């Protein structure tokens, strides 16, 4: 019940939330504590490392509002998160891709009903080292040619004539990550990724790897690129309509295709109805996701999506 | 290439009233083996109350083994087997089911190397009473004082009862160990070379103490120092290779031994 009152109040603030996180923080803080007093409880989540920066920001801000609610979130990747979600160990599961059919089926079998909540958008960024002076853009076909296992070692010259005959070094997020899944779906189209690729859940491994060699190429979430834009070079992607670089605008508008994708957290319905703390936290998350996504380097989703999610959550309480 | 030694060991005059005294320990046909090593062979000894009985003999002859059997400390060595009997106050302590913990509260023991516990002096003395269930602080205080007085060390330590016993000299430590024995008011005190690790002056003090204690307790003392046996004991048993060669009044043993081997030993011909 308390969540309901809060929702109206926060909806009011949502519109005029500023970009600066500090003032946003103050707004949120005054909102909840004045109306609801202190909530208590535990909320456990896990999942995507792409979503982790947003979720970390949400948890951090939420702790300032409701210090007695113990929210924790692991970073096991989208797939790993869903495993725990299916096992009933978590109340929300962050995902950098929509839930898969098998996962949905497993949840149904486990009797867990869930709601998909939008947190923001990500532009999956393909990057090379700044020492790489030959790549200006890549077409989707070239990307696929590069990343699909062919049984032979690939050099840059194999991709486009005139590029050096140096073997390409690949860095990719781990296969259980939503990022990989997404890339797999839109670029690899279910073919095998090159075997020489370094697969890691550790995004820093990828950043360091690409930084380390002019012949390296990698991809990961937009936020990680932004963090390292001084040292990395992002590769514009040509989907038939000319090369497009990932920016806030191109991602939100969908112009950066096909690598622009939504980020979610999946929420267990029973947690919302039974755990006031969980309901409150998720409400807070929806209210603040847009701002915090931008604050940590992602792109906010259109407001209608947030509003829809909020309605669904409200109806569950 | 030959050495000729002719010792004379003087035995001080002692009152002899042994015959009139009761027995504390009687070993009958006592045998003991460490695995296959036959360390005690058919020992027959009758040890009287309120006397000092000395056990002498060369190294390895079984002196320590014998004295340890008297309070069943040999129990701690798994390989030990015994036969025969040791009658203490009318009961055979070697019998199965005999509670040796109880026996040991009546038979105190002092070891070759002073071995106080690494605790305070007070706690050392109070240890015995405590493990036997005495917790009353006042009673413990009394016991501690009385025992330390009994071991003639009260004056030296009364102001430092809370100090660690290892801060004392070796001779003092040994008297603490004697006091620790006295705290449970035993009936018999067994001593295994109690002065062999001590300097001459401490030795003297312990010897005097033994003379004093004998008024109240029966004392059995192992010593490799024949002069000491002569000085302080009423009876002496001479062990050799696990056998009792001779057991008699101390002055008889030292002045006129009946066995040639005893004579050889006390005249220093071997050992």
């Amino acid at each position, binding site marked *: 019940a308390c969540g309901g009152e809060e929702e109206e109040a926060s909806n009011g603030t949502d519109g005029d939330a500023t970009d600066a996180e500090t003032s946003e923080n103050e707004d949120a803080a005054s909102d909840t504590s004045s109306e609801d007093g202190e909530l208590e409880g535990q909320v456990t989540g896990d999942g995507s490392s792409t979503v982790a920066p947003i979720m970390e920001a949400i948890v951090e801000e939420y702790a300032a509002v409701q210090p007695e609610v113990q929210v924790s979130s692991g970073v096991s990747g989208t797939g790993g998160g869903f495993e725990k979600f299916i096992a009933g160990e978590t109340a929300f599961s962050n995902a950098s891709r929509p839930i898969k059919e098998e996962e949905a089926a497993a949840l149904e079998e486990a009797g867990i009903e869930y709601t998909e909540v939008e947190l923001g958008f990500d532009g999956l960024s393909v990057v090379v080292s700044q020492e790489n002076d030959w790549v200006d853009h890549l077409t989707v076909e070239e990307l696929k040619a590069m990343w699909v296992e062919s049984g032979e070692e690939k050099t840059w010259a194999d991709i486009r004539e005139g590029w050096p005959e140096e073997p390409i070094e690949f860095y990719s997020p781990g296969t259980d990550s939503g990022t990989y899944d997404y890339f797999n779906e839109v670029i690899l189209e279910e073919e095998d990724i090159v075997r020489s690729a370094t697969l890691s859940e550790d995004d820093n491994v990828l950043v360091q790897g690409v930084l380390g060699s002019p012949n390296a190429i990698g991809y990961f979430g937009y936020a990680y690129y932004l963090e390292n834009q001084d040292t990395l070079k992002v590769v514009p992607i040509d989907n038939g309509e000319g090369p497009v670089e990932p920016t806030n605008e191109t991602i939100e508008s969908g112009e950066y295709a096909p690598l622009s994708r939504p980020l979610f957290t999946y929420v267990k319905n029973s947690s919302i109805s039974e755990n006031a703390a969980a309901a409150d936290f998720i409400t807070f998350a929806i209210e603040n996701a847009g701002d915090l996504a931008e604050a940590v380097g992602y792109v906010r989703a259109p407001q209608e999506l947030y509003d829809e999610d909020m309605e669904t959550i409200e109806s569950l309480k | 290439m030959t050495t000729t030694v002719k010792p004379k060991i003087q035995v001080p005059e002692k009152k002899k009233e042994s015959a009139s005294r009761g027995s504390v320990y009687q070993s009958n046909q006592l045998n003991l083996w460490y695995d296959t090593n036959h360390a005690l062979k058919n020992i027959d000894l009758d040890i009287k109350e309120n006397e000092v009985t000395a056990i002498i003999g060369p190294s390895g002859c079984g002196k320590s083994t014998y004295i340890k059997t008297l309070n069943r400390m040999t129990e*701690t060595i798994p390989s030990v087997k015994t036969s025969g009997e040791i009658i203490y106050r009318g009961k055979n302590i070697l019998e199965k089911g005999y509670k040796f913990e109880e026996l040991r509260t009546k038979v105190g023991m002092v070891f070759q190397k002073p071995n106080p516990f690494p605790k305070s002096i007070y706690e050392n003395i109070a240890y015995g009473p405590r493990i036997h269930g005495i917790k009353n602080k006042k009673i413990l205080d009394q016991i501690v004082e009385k025992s330390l007085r009994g071991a003639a060390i009260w004056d030296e330590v009364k102001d430092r009862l809370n100090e660690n016993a290892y801060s004392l000299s070796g001779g003092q430590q040994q008297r603490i160990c004697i006091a620790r024995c006295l705290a449970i008011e035993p009936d018999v005190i067994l001593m295994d070379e109690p002065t062999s690790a001590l300097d001459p002056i401490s030795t003297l003090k312990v010897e005097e103490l033994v003379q004093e204690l004998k008024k109240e307790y029966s004392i059995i003392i192992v010593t490799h120092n024949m002069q000491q046996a002569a000085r302080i004991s009423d009876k002496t048993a001479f062990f050799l290779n696990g056998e009792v060669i001779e057991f008699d009044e101390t002055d008889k043993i030292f002045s006129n031994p009946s066995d040639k081997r005893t004579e050889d030993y006390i005249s220093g011909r071997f050992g």
Partner: protein
Amino acid sequence: MNYIDHESVAKKTNSRLLKNKVLKSIFLAATMFGLIVLAILLYRIVTQGSEYLSLEFFTSFASRIPENSGIKAAILGSIYLMLVVAPISMFLGVGTAVYLEEYAKKNKLTNFIRINISNLAGVPSVVFGLLGLTIFARFFGLGISILAAGLTMSLLILPIIIVAAQEAIRSVPKELRDASYAMGATKWQTILRIVLPAAIPGILTGSILALSRAIGETAPLVVLGIPTILMFTPDSILSTFTALPMQIFDWTKRPQVAFHDVAAAGIIVLMTLLIIMNSIAVFIRNKYQKRY
């Protein structure tokens, strides 16, 4: 006939002495290598992390902003973890050591237990992580809690504590036990009142060193999957938590370089804890070394 020409021996002596000198310097250099690496490691970490080391670092939770990041949850988590690990591992370790040293007969079971302990000591910590995840977190349903992690860590350091306690117990002189037995004390009384008190310094030294290993262990926590995004301190042993090494691991994984410096600050704290624990252990060892 003379085989040894003492004059030529004398001539050769110089070159042998030179060889000795040269190798001595090489051995010394090898010894210094370890020390120098340690110095570099500490120096780098201190210079890298000192900027973030402030009082707030201890009183704030982790944050997405490096400047606001702190180790409140991590350090309290580590402390709670140790509060679980210390009693469990010491109880099990000392109990096992007492059994092996005082009661165990020489038989196959005893021998098996001994061999098993030394093998257990060599099992990689990541495998203990799998044990914890499968048995404690999932099978016993303890989840990702302090208790689950604490039990895992306890078993991980159990062999170290057993061996240290065995040595400490063994070094209690037989004379002390004999003295106690001669007073009519039972075996258990002797163990409880004489042997264990006398062995305590050794047991403590070993246990502290073992705990200092546990406090820095990361792999089992990673395998258990303890969370790093959390803004609260645990309120029971069934709470979820994060720990210092896990937090450090998380920071080193971040793409922002500033977080590496935060990680270094965390490492300074962890290393300080370790050095304090080691010093306490060394202090106890030196203080109580020879007492009997």
